[in-house]
């Protein structure tokens, strides 16, 4: 029997977006129709969402799906905005 390949990790900006909009895990969970703990597991990267849930999240934040989810780790905000990684 072939060994199943491990699922690739999906990185996301959920925690940042949620903090930015001032939304609690419970409120987001209620809107999305999931358990509030699932939001926590998503934010920690312990769970990769289904396509349907990923689209629901993108619709909720009114952002393209690739702005929230990526197969590669997201660069830090400071790098994205200012092109720097550390302050000297």
């Amino acid at each position, binding site marked *: 029997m072939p060994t199943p390949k491990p699922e690739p990790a999906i990185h996301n900006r959920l925690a940042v977006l949620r903090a930015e909009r001032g939304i609690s895990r419970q409120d987001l969970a209620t809107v999305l*129709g999931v358990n*509030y703990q699932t939001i926590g597991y998503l934010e920690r990267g312990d769970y990769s969402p289904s396509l349907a849930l990923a689209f629901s999240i993108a619709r909720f934040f009114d952002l393209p799906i690739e702005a929230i989810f990526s197969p590669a780790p997201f660069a830090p905000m400071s790098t994205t905005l200012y092109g720097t990684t550390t302050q000297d």
Partner: protein
Amino acid sequence: MVGRRTRFERVDGEIPRRIRRPMAILAIAGYPLALIVGLVLAPKLDVIPGLGAVLGLAILAVTMFAMYQLYRFRSQMAQAPDDRLDERQRQIRDRAYVDSYRWFVLITLLTLVALSLGPTLLDAPITLTFEVANWFIVGIVLISIALPSAVVAWREPDLED
């Protein structure tokens, strides 16, 4: 499940994994252990009359407590219908059932081996009466019920807020 938090969800996560895991082991291994102590080793432990039976019953009581706690605090997920769970929980539940089946087969085979070899190796023969057979059947039923809960309790990571 939208917008509705059950009693289970409110208390979910109160038992950290470092406690859940020993409880999961106890919920599965406790009953066979109680049988071994109460039935097989009882004659050897009876330096004090009834000691083997009392020890067996004590282990059984602790096992039942562990099973109840796993069910109550963490693992109703394992028995919940689809409409009470979200996609992550359904995934965990379904994987738990697959793994439970594998563990159930392994435990049943080990039990049969132990029943075949144990009495000879321990020099403590078991007289297979209806009552003794009943204990084993009850054990198989209890373990099959507890396994999905134990797998979920073992696997679910803690969620630090």
